[in-house]
Protein backbone atom coordinates (compact mmCIF):
# COMPACT_ATOMS: atom_id res chain seq x y z
CA UNK A 1 0.00 0.00 0.00
CA UNK A 2 1.65 3.24 -1.10
CA UNK A 3 1.49 6.58 0.70
CA UNK A 4 -0.98 7.93 -1.81
CA UNK A 5 -3.38 5.04 -1.26
CA UNK A 6 -3.07 5.35 2.50
CA UNK A 7 -3.70 9.08 2.30
CA UNK A 8 -6.66 8.58 0.01
CA UNK A 9 -8.39 6.24 2.47
CA UNK A 10 -7.47 8.28 5.56
CA UNK A 11 -8.49 11.64 4.12
CA UNK A 12 -11.73 10.59 2.47
CA UNK A 13 -14.28 13.39 2.81
CA UNK A 14 -11.81 16.12 3.88
CA UNK A 15 -11.31 19.01 1.47
CA UNK A 16 -7.74 19.13 0.19
CA UNK A 17 -5.66 19.06 -2.99
CA UNK A 18 -2.79 16.68 -3.56
CA UNK A 19 0.41 17.71 -5.33
CA UNK A 20 3.62 15.81 -5.89
CA UNK A 21 6.62 18.18 -5.96
CA UNK A 22 9.93 17.27 -7.56
CA UNK A 23 11.27 15.58 -4.42
CA UNK A 24 8.44 13.05 -4.52
CA UNK A 25 6.99 13.77 -1.07
CA UNK A 26 3.19 13.97 -1.32
CA UNK A 27 2.03 17.47 -0.53
CA UNK A 28 -1.46 18.36 0.66
CA UNK A 29 -2.82 21.85 0.13
CA UNK A 30 -5.48 22.78 2.61
CA UNK A 31 -7.46 25.85 3.65
CA UNK A 32 -7.64 27.22 7.19
CA UNK A 33 -10.86 25.41 8.09
CA UNK A 34 -9.55 22.11 6.79
CA UNK A 35 -6.38 22.07 8.88
CA UNK A 36 -7.77 20.53 12.08
CA UNK A 37 -9.75 17.65 10.50
CA UNK A 38 -6.89 16.93 8.11
CA UNK A 39 -4.34 16.78 10.94
CA UNK A 40 -6.56 14.52 13.02
CA UNK A 41 -7.02 12.19 10.06
CA UNK A 42 -3.26 12.13 9.43
CA UNK A 43 -2.58 11.23 13.05
CA UNK A 44 -5.23 8.54 13.46
CA UNK A 45 -5.91 7.15 9.99
CA UNK A 46 -2.67 8.02 8.21
CA UNK A 47 -0.36 6.67 10.90
CA UNK A 48 1.92 9.73 10.83
CA UNK A 49 3.09 9.61 14.43
CA UNK A 50 5.97 12.10 14.11
CA UNK A 51 5.89 15.81 13.35
CA UNK A 52 9.17 16.64 11.59
CA UNK A 53 8.81 20.40 11.51
CA UNK A 54 6.44 23.34 11.40
CA UNK A 55 7.65 26.38 9.55
CA UNK A 56 6.51 29.17 7.26
CA UNK A 57 7.55 30.70 3.96
CA UNK A 58 7.43 34.40 3.21
CA UNK A 59 6.62 34.44 -0.51
CA UNK A 60 6.63 38.18 -0.95
CA UNK A 61 5.91 39.69 -3.48
CA UNK A 62 3.75 36.69 -4.45
CA UNK A 63 0.12 36.58 -3.32
CA UNK A 64 -0.94 35.20 -0.91
CA UNK A 65 2.11 36.19 1.04
CA UNK A 66 2.58 33.50 3.68
CA UNK A 67 2.61 29.74 3.49
CA UNK A 68 2.66 27.62 6.64
CA UNK A 69 4.26 24.21 6.12
CA UNK A 70 4.03 21.08 8.28
CA UNK A 71 5.87 17.85 7.59
CA UNK A 72 5.05 14.49 9.12
CA UNK A 73 6.88 11.18 9.19
CA UNK A 74 5.49 7.71 9.56
CA UNK A 75 8.23 5.61 11.12
CA UNK A 76 6.20 2.45 10.62
CA UNK A 77 5.73 2.92 6.87
CA UNK A 78 8.90 4.98 6.30
CA UNK A 79 7.22 7.76 4.35
CA UNK A 80 6.52 11.42 4.72
CA UNK A 81 3.80 13.87 3.91
CA UNK A 82 3.84 17.64 3.73
CA UNK A 83 0.87 19.91 4.43
CA UNK A 84 0.73 23.49 3.20
CA UNK A 85 -1.64 26.33 3.98
CA UNK A 86 -1.62 29.72 2.29
CA UNK A 87 -2.57 32.92 4.08
CA UNK A 88 -2.55 36.52 3.00
CA UNK A 89 -2.92 38.00 6.50
CA UNK A 90 -0.25 40.27 7.94
CA UNK A 91 -0.13 37.88 10.91
CA UNK A 92 -1.48 34.56 9.63
CA UNK A 93 -3.78 32.69 12.03
CA UNK A 94 -3.34 28.94 12.05
CA UNK A 95 -4.81 26.26 14.35
CA UNK A 96 -2.26 24.64 16.64
CA UNK A 97 -1.45 20.92 16.49
CA UNK A 98 0.19 20.56 19.89
CA UNK A 99 -2.69 18.46 21.23
CA UNK A 100 -1.95 15.89 18.52
CA UNK A 101 1.86 16.20 18.35
CA UNK A 102 3.11 17.84 21.59
CA UNK A 103 6.59 18.17 20.11
CA UNK A 104 5.26 20.78 17.70
CA UNK A 105 5.08 23.31 20.53
CA UNK A 106 8.66 24.47 20.06
CA UNK A 107 8.33 24.60 16.27
CA UNK A 108 5.25 26.75 16.58
CA UNK A 109 6.98 29.08 19.01
CA UNK A 110 9.93 29.40 16.64
CA UNK A 111 7.61 30.01 13.69
CA UNK A 112 5.79 32.69 15.66
CA UNK A 113 9.11 34.27 16.65
CA UNK A 114 10.58 34.32 13.16
CA UNK A 115 7.51 34.96 10.98
CA UNK A 116 4.76 36.26 13.24
CA UNK A 117 2.40 33.36 12.56
CA UNK A 118 -0.21 33.17 15.33
CA UNK A 119 -1.04 29.61 16.32
CA UNK A 120 -4.56 29.60 17.74
CA UNK A 121 -4.87 27.46 20.85
CA UNK A 122 -1.17 27.35 21.66
CA UNK A 123 -1.03 27.75 25.44
CA UNK A 124 2.44 29.25 25.58
CA UNK A 125 3.05 31.17 22.37
CA UNK A 126 6.10 33.15 23.47
CA UNK A 127 9.19 33.97 21.48
CA UNK A 128 11.68 31.13 21.42
CA UNK A 129 14.95 32.67 20.22
CA UNK A 130 14.68 36.44 20.33
CA UNK A 131 14.16 38.44 23.56
CA UNK A 132 10.54 38.59 24.71
CA UNK A 133 10.31 42.36 24.21
CA UNK A 134 11.66 42.14 20.64
CA UNK A 135 9.45 43.93 18.14
CA UNK A 136 10.26 42.33 14.80
CA UNK A 137 10.02 38.97 13.09
CA UNK A 138 13.49 38.46 11.66
CA UNK A 139 12.84 35.97 8.86
CA UNK A 140 10.27 38.16 7.10
CA UNK A 141 11.35 39.52 3.75
CA UNK A 142 11.17 43.17 4.76
CA UNK A 143 13.56 42.62 7.68
CA UNK A 144 17.15 43.73 6.87
CA UNK A 145 19.82 41.16 7.68
CA UNK A 146 21.65 43.53 10.00
CA UNK A 147 18.44 44.14 11.89
CA UNK A 148 16.51 47.23 12.89
CA UNK A 149 18.31 48.78 15.85
CA UNK A 150 19.64 45.41 17.06
CA UNK A 151 20.96 46.97 20.28
CA UNK A 152 17.74 48.75 21.23
CA UNK A 153 16.78 46.42 24.10
CA UNK A 154 20.34 46.38 25.40
CA UNK A 155 20.45 50.18 25.31
CA UNK A 156 17.26 50.38 27.37
CA UNK A 157 18.62 47.87 29.86
CA UNK A 158 21.94 49.70 29.98
CA UNK A 159 20.29 53.05 30.64
CA UNK A 160 18.30 51.49 33.46
CA UNK A 161 21.46 49.94 34.86
CA UNK A 162 23.29 53.27 34.80
CA UNK A 163 20.51 55.42 36.18
CA UNK A 164 18.81 53.16 38.71
CA UNK A 165 21.74 52.28 40.92
CA UNK A 166 23.29 49.49 38.93
CA UNK A 167 26.87 48.54 39.52
CA UNK A 168 29.18 51.39 38.49
CA UNK A 169 31.73 50.52 35.87
Amino acid at each position, binding site marked *: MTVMERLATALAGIAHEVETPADGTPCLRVAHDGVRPLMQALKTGGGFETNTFVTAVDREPAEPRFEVVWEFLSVKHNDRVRVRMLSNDEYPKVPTIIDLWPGAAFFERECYDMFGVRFEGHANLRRLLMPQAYEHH*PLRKEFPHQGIEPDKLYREWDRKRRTQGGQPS
Partner: protein
Amino acid sequence: MGSLKPADANQNKGGFLATRADALVNWGRKNSLWPMPLGLSCCGIEMMSMLGPRFDLARFGAEAARFTPRQCDLMIVAGTLTWKMAEAARTIYDQMPEPKWVIAMGVCSSSGGMYDSYSVVQGVDMILPVDVYVPGCPPRPDAVIDAILKLQTRIERETPVRDLLATPVTEGWEEGTGRFKRQPNKSNPTRRDGEVAEAEVEAAQ
Protein backbone atom coordinates in the same frame (compact mmCIF):
# COMPACT_ATOMS: atom_id res chain seq x y z
CA MET B 1 75.87 54.16 36.64
CA GLY B 2 72.60 55.95 35.83
CA SER B 3 72.15 59.30 34.17
CA LEU B 4 72.24 62.48 36.20
CA LYS B 5 69.36 64.05 34.21
CA PRO B 6 66.55 65.41 36.39
CA ALA B 7 63.76 62.94 36.92
CA ASP B 8 60.52 63.75 35.12
CA ALA B 9 57.31 64.79 36.80
CA ASN B 10 55.88 61.31 37.16
CA GLN B 11 58.97 59.95 38.81
CA ASN B 12 59.02 62.86 41.22
CA LYS B 13 55.45 62.11 42.15
CA GLY B 14 56.13 58.43 42.71
CA GLY B 15 59.27 58.08 44.67
CA PHE B 16 61.25 54.93 45.37
CA LEU B 17 58.90 53.32 47.87
CA ALA B 18 55.79 53.82 45.74
CA THR B 19 57.38 52.51 42.55
CA ARG B 20 58.73 49.43 44.31
CA ALA B 21 55.32 48.84 45.90
CA ASP B 22 53.77 49.20 42.43
CA ALA B 23 56.17 46.62 41.08
CA LEU B 24 55.28 44.21 43.89
CA VAL B 25 51.52 44.68 43.45
CA ASN B 26 51.77 44.33 39.67
CA TRP B 27 53.93 41.24 40.01
CA GLY B 28 51.29 39.68 42.20
CA ARG B 29 48.43 40.68 39.92
CA LYS B 30 49.97 39.59 36.66
CA ASN B 31 51.03 36.18 37.89
CA SER B 32 47.73 35.27 39.48
CA LEU B 33 45.10 36.20 36.93
CA TRP B 34 41.93 34.23 37.62
CA PRO B 35 39.95 33.88 34.42
CA MET B 36 36.19 34.07 34.19
CA PRO B 37 35.55 31.64 31.33
CA LEU B 38 32.66 33.08 29.34
CA GLY B 39 32.65 30.25 26.80
CA LEU B 40 29.85 31.14 24.41
CA SER B 41 30.61 28.87 21.46
CA CYS B 42 33.41 26.90 19.79
CA CYS B 43 36.13 29.19 21.18
CA GLY B 44 35.15 27.81 24.58
CA ILE B 45 36.53 24.40 23.57
CA GLU B 46 39.91 25.90 22.71
CA MET B 47 39.84 27.76 26.01
CA MET B 48 39.25 24.51 27.92
CA SER B 49 42.16 22.99 26.05
CA MET B 50 44.26 26.01 27.00
CA LEU B 51 43.37 25.58 30.67
CA GLY B 52 44.04 21.85 30.55
CA PRO B 53 47.33 19.98 30.91
CA ARG B 54 48.39 19.97 27.25
CA PHE B 55 48.79 23.74 26.87
CA ASP B 56 48.97 24.22 30.63
CA LEU B 57 48.07 27.80 31.41
CA ALA B 58 49.20 27.06 34.97
CA ARG B 59 52.73 27.88 33.77
CA PHE B 60 51.61 31.50 33.68
CA GLY B 61 49.55 31.43 36.84
CA ALA B 62 46.17 31.89 35.16
CA GLU B 63 44.71 28.40 35.31
CA ALA B 64 42.36 28.96 38.25
CA ALA B 65 39.15 29.42 36.29
CA ARG B 66 36.24 30.23 38.57
CA PHE B 67 32.61 30.10 37.62
CA THR B 68 31.61 32.93 39.90
CA PRO B 69 32.55 36.44 38.85
CA ARG B 70 33.23 37.40 42.46
CA GLN B 71 36.52 35.49 42.40
CA CYS B 72 37.74 36.50 38.95
CA ASP B 73 39.73 39.36 37.54
CA LEU B 74 40.15 38.35 33.88
CA MET B 75 37.13 37.86 31.67
CA ILE B 76 37.79 35.80 28.56
CA VAL B 77 34.87 36.32 26.18
CA ALA B 78 35.25 33.18 24.09
CA GLY B 79 32.72 33.05 21.29
CA THR B 80 29.74 34.67 19.66
CA LEU B 81 28.00 37.16 21.91
CA THR B 82 24.38 37.79 21.00
CA TRP B 83 22.43 40.86 22.04
CA LYS B 84 20.22 38.63 24.16
CA MET B 85 23.30 37.40 26.06
CA ALA B 86 24.90 40.86 26.22
CA GLU B 87 22.98 41.88 29.34
CA ALA B 88 24.18 38.76 31.16
CA ALA B 89 27.77 39.32 30.02
CA ARG B 90 27.71 42.92 31.21
CA THR B 91 26.19 41.89 34.54
CA ILE B 92 28.91 39.29 35.06
CA TYR B 93 31.54 41.89 34.20
CA ASP B 94 30.04 44.35 36.68
CA GLN B 95 30.08 41.70 39.40
CA MET B 96 33.81 41.09 39.02
CA PRO B 97 35.87 42.97 41.63
CA GLU B 98 38.36 45.61 40.53
CA PRO B 99 40.90 45.54 39.05
CA LYS B 100 39.67 43.55 36.05
CA TRP B 101 40.67 42.94 32.49
CA VAL B 102 38.96 41.58 29.39
CA ILE B 103 40.28 39.43 26.55
CA ALA B 104 38.13 39.19 23.41
CA MET B 105 38.94 35.71 22.13
CA GLY B 106 38.27 34.99 18.46
CA VAL B 107 36.85 37.06 15.64
CA CYS B 108 33.23 36.76 16.81
CA SER B 109 33.89 38.53 20.08
CA SER B 110 36.42 40.90 18.49
CA SER B 111 34.25 42.14 15.65
CA GLY B 112 31.19 39.95 15.19
CA GLY B 113 33.17 37.84 12.72
CA MET B 114 31.14 36.24 9.99
CA TYR B 115 27.91 36.90 11.87
CA ASP B 116 26.99 40.18 10.23
CA SER B 117 23.57 39.67 11.71
CA TYR B 118 20.67 41.18 13.60
CA SER B 119 21.24 39.02 16.65
CA VAL B 120 25.01 39.21 17.19
CA VAL B 121 26.97 41.95 18.97
CA GLN B 122 29.42 43.35 16.41
CA GLY B 123 32.38 43.15 18.76
CA VAL B 124 32.19 42.87 22.54
CA ASP B 125 33.93 46.24 22.79
CA MET B 126 30.45 47.64 22.24
CA ILE B 127 29.57 46.58 25.79
CA LEU B 128 32.85 45.77 27.58
CA PRO B 129 36.23 47.51 27.83
CA VAL B 130 38.53 45.10 25.97
CA ASP B 131 42.26 44.98 26.69
CA VAL B 132 43.49 42.37 24.22
CA TYR B 133 41.90 41.08 21.01
CA VAL B 134 42.83 37.61 19.77
CA PRO B 135 42.16 36.89 16.09
CA GLY B 136 41.34 33.41 14.85
CA CYS B 137 38.30 31.22 14.33
CA PRO B 138 38.85 29.81 16.85
CA PRO B 139 42.34 30.99 17.90
CA ARG B 140 44.83 28.30 18.85
CA PRO B 141 45.41 28.03 22.61
CA ASP B 142 48.94 29.35 21.98
CA ALA B 143 47.45 32.57 20.63
CA VAL B 144 45.36 33.09 23.75
CA ILE B 145 48.37 32.32 25.96
CA ASP B 146 50.22 35.00 23.98
CA ALA B 147 47.35 37.38 24.68
CA ILE B 148 47.63 36.65 28.39
CA LEU B 149 51.39 37.31 28.25
CA LYS B 150 50.69 40.61 26.48
CA LEU B 151 48.17 41.46 29.17
CA GLN B 152 50.80 40.67 31.79
CA THR B 153 53.22 43.17 30.26
CA ARG B 154 50.38 45.66 30.24
CA ILE B 155 49.63 45.03 33.92
CA GLU B 156 53.34 45.53 34.69
CA ARG B 157 53.08 49.10 33.47
CA GLU B 158 50.13 50.02 35.69
CA THR B 159 50.69 52.26 38.71
CA PRO B 160 48.14 51.26 41.39
CA VAL B 161 50.03 52.54 44.45
CA ARG B 162 51.06 55.79 42.81
CA ASP B 163 47.44 56.36 41.77
CA LEU B 164 46.34 55.72 45.31
CA LEU B 165 48.88 58.21 46.71
CA ALA B 166 48.04 60.77 44.04
CA THR B 167 44.37 60.78 45.07
CA PRO B 168 43.67 63.55 47.61
CA VAL B 169 42.55 62.13 50.96
CA THR B 170 39.37 64.20 50.88
CA GLU B 171 38.34 62.68 47.54
CA GLY B 172 39.66 59.17 47.99
CA TRP B 173 38.04 58.11 51.25
CA GLU B 174 34.37 57.58 51.81
CA GLU B 175 33.04 59.83 54.54
CA GLY B 176 32.88 58.10 57.88
CA THR B 177 33.35 54.55 56.58
CA GLY B 178 37.12 54.27 56.56
CA ARG B 179 36.89 52.63 53.15
CA PHE B 180 38.75 53.72 50.09
CA LYS B 181 36.55 54.53 47.12
CA ARG B 182 36.63 52.15 44.21
CA GLN B 183 39.36 52.94 41.73
CA PRO B 184 38.08 53.54 38.23
CA ASN B 185 38.93 50.69 35.91
CA LYS B 186 41.99 51.61 33.94
CA SER B 187 40.99 49.58 30.91
CA ASN B 188 39.90 51.07 27.61
CA PRO B 189 36.48 52.67 27.44
CA THR B 190 33.83 50.75 25.52
CA ARG B 191 32.53 52.12 22.26
CA ARG B 192 29.18 52.35 24.02
CA ASP B 193 30.55 54.58 26.80
CA GLY B 194 31.28 57.20 24.15
CA GLU B 195 27.79 56.88 22.71
CA VAL B 196 26.18 57.14 26.12
CA ALA B 197 28.27 60.21 26.95
CA GLU B 198 27.20 61.81 23.67
CA ALA B 199 23.57 61.04 24.40
CA GLU B 200 23.89 62.61 27.83
CA VAL B 201 25.43 65.74 26.32
CA GLU B 202 22.60 65.91 23.78
CA ALA B 203 20.01 65.47 26.52
CA ALA B 204 21.61 68.28 28.57
CA GLN B 205 21.39 70.62 25.59
